[in-house]
């Protein structure tokens, strides 16, 4: 281990659900989030990277002084926090043999189709030898798109979510981060835990394959609605497809999201004071009636919401039993009373980056949240091959 590298904060023992699990992470794309998720729960995750892929925390130091952020480095550090990292050139002589020698020391291997290691790894053979393998694909390993290039905007498009993203009068709008790939990565983390469970309980070492396109296509009843409701869901901003008012509304100092389903309508009318008397008619109770007249209803509601600050409106409506939350920027979320009270973020000290707020695993386990992890810690592969390093 390199002396100057930080030591990751160990998750609190109570929260370490995967303390005896060891994962070899060969991913190079956004499936790297899967390894971070299990690392947050205490798993020992070794990320094997080619030298030219390596991102270093030092490259972000300037960003703390207002310089432009290197998004590639930022992404690599965000998705790999809590892991160990070792370097190996896949093109180096004997790289495949070294990889094969490493695998039996792990409970599972994860790889994606962006990885340079996929060509050196035969998942079926590795599984046959007793180590389960998780493979994250943009599409799949077979089928007409198997050879297609699959960055997130492409799988979001072919998975159906891009079609319903953004406002109706503009082009479909891509999400701010590759959430389709992240969603597939969560599936990969489930596959990792399941693979270890199956191996330990039944001795079954299998190959688990996740398709990002398929993962995205499970959302929003897209397939069922198209097949059974007579018309596909269309793009309409944040307006809920079957409920109104359920949208973003302006306030004095920003925006809130209000959701008024059938059960909330009468409490909402009491809170919406004064409201146009026409809405007191019982015919407005069904969601479908209000949704059909959403344009006029939303305009009337917006006229009222603009008389409040976001905080006052959230407090008022939630107090009356009506779901309402502020449209936050990430910085607002970080400083939100609820987020602060639950200690979702922890200030960590990194020898390279200094002190900063790091997000922690999104669950409290037996009263304790897993401690925040720090960026990748580099280890010598030779040490790991000798079994000397555990995170």
């Amino acid at each position, binding site marked *: 281990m390199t002396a100057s590298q930080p030591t990751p904060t160990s998750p609190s023992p109570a929260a370490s*659900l995967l303390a005896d699990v060891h994962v070899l992470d060969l991913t190079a794309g956004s499936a790297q989030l899967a390894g971070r998720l299990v690392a947050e729960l205490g798993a020992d995750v070794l990320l094997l990277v080619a030298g030219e892929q390596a991102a270093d925390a030092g490259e972000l130091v300037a960003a703390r002084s207002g310089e432009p952020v290197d998004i590639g480095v930022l992404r690599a550090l965000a998705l790999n926090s809590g892991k160990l990292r070792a370097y190996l050139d896949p093109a180096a002589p004997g790289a495949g043999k070294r990889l094969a020698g490493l695998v039996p020391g792990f409970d599972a291997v994860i790889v994606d189709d962006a990885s340079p290691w996929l060509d050196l790894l035969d998942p079926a053979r590795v599984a046959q030898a007793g180590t389960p393998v998780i493979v994250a694909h943009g599409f*799949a390993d077979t089928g007409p798109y198997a050879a297609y290039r699959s960055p997130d905007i*492409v799988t979001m498009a072919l998975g159906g979510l891009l079609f319903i993203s953004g*406002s109706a009068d503009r082009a479909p709008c891509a999400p701010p981060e590759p959430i389709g790939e992240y969603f597939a990565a969560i599936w990969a983390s489930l596959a990792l835990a399941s693979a270890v469970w199956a191996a330990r309980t039944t001795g079954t070492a299998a190959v688990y394959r996740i398709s990002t396109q398929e993962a995205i296509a499970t959302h929003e009843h*897209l397939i*069922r609605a198209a097949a059974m409701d007579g018309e596909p869901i269309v793009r309409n*901003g944040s307006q809920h497809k079957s409920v109104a008012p359920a949208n973003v509304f302006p306030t004095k100092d920003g925006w809130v999201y209000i959701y008024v389903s059938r059960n909330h309508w009468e409490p909402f009318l009491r809170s919406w004071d004064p409201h146009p008397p026409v809405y007191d008619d019982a015919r407005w109770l069904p969601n479908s009636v209000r949704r059909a007249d959403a344009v006029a209803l939303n305009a009337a509601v917006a006229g009222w919401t603009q008389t409040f600050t976001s905080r006052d409106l959230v407090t008022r409506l939630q107090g009356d039993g009506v779901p309402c939350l502020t449209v936050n920027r990430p910085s607002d979320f970080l400083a939100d009373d609820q987020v602060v009270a639950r200690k979702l973020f922890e200030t960590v000290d990194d020898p390279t980056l200094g002190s900063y707020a790091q997000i922690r695993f999104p669950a409290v*386990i037996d009263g304790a949240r897993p401690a925040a992890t720090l960026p990748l810690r580099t280890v010598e592969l030779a040490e790991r091959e000798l079994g000397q390093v555990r995170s």
Partner: protein
Amino acid sequence: VILDGIRILTFTTGIAGPNAGRILASLGAEVIKIESVAGGIDAFRYFGAGNDLNSSARFAEANLGVRSVTINLKDPAGLAVARDLAATCDVVVENYRPGVLGRLGLGDDVLQAGRPDIIVVKMPGLGSSGPMKGYGTWGALLNAYTGLTYLWNHPDATVPVGNQGVFPDYLTSVLAPMVVVSALLRRRSTGAGAIIDLAQSEATAFCALPVSMLEVGLTGEDPPRVGNRSRGPELQGVYRCLGDERWCAIRIESQAQLDALRGIVGPALDVDDMRGLDVARANHDAFDAIVSVWTADRDAAAVMTELQEHGVPAGLVASGDDLLADPQLDRLGFIRHLDQPGVGPMVVPGLPLTIEPPILSEPAPAALLGADTDDVLRTILSLGEDEIATLRDNGALR
């Protein structure tokens, strides 16, 4: 199957909790969902179904393979049955508002008294503690609360637009089973159960915005809204094609891909300020205009196919109808056809996970409300027919 022998009791509504149950059932667990017409019906049973609690296709889609038991938890005898049943279960999953199960008499202490190594996974919107724990939340509100709605927008937009979907529900519905299996692994090693508070808002921030959260935590600055542009060195856009609402997403990640695109688009891209990736990136508006002219009178699927065949990442922006006709999704039967009691023929997506050797359960229809009550009480709790009849007559099983 993977979770063979694992029994899971659920108290769930909407998408996040029910879909977690569906996934766990597909992994082989016996998942038993508790509801009651006396208070505690999954809200999705009313979606598009009028007053017939068994005719909602939306409910069925999120509860495939899950057994249904009706127990009135407000009835002392019903509560006792639920406690006895929980004591036979490995896991309890719930996504009611914080404190509801406790007030009904099924709090953590009660569940642990019945089975000390039980694993309880709660999936509240904002968490089970904190000043806003009791707030009502739905997926779209959590998009807004975490920053996703603000960031998911074109840079020049004056209103936070976002997406009408409930990404928080879906991602938490997968993360919860991952946490369940992780807790089972620890229990296998240590014998310890777990009480897990998995907040959907926190899961969304962690799993949908990991880079943004690191950026703001590190720099104090919010990420910019970039719409369809990449924040990296790539060229990227969504371009209108021939027909109504037909679009194709295209991304250029390398000089070779830009060269390939230029070979396809022709002279309009064969100009000095479009030949190099960096210079084209610096002239992104002009790049978009050229590509838009080229795609405008072409079929979106044809654009995708031609570009992909030349190594250029591209995908038609698929509507629901496109998904139904997609040859890749039809591969290995991802799009499933089943006969759902109360609904009729249904078309639903399968799981995005394949396993070789196959150790997943095929999706079974969702159970009719209360269809498994007698069988569960008879076979799991060993109650006799007379005892079950008495409970039913007294209103404990409705």
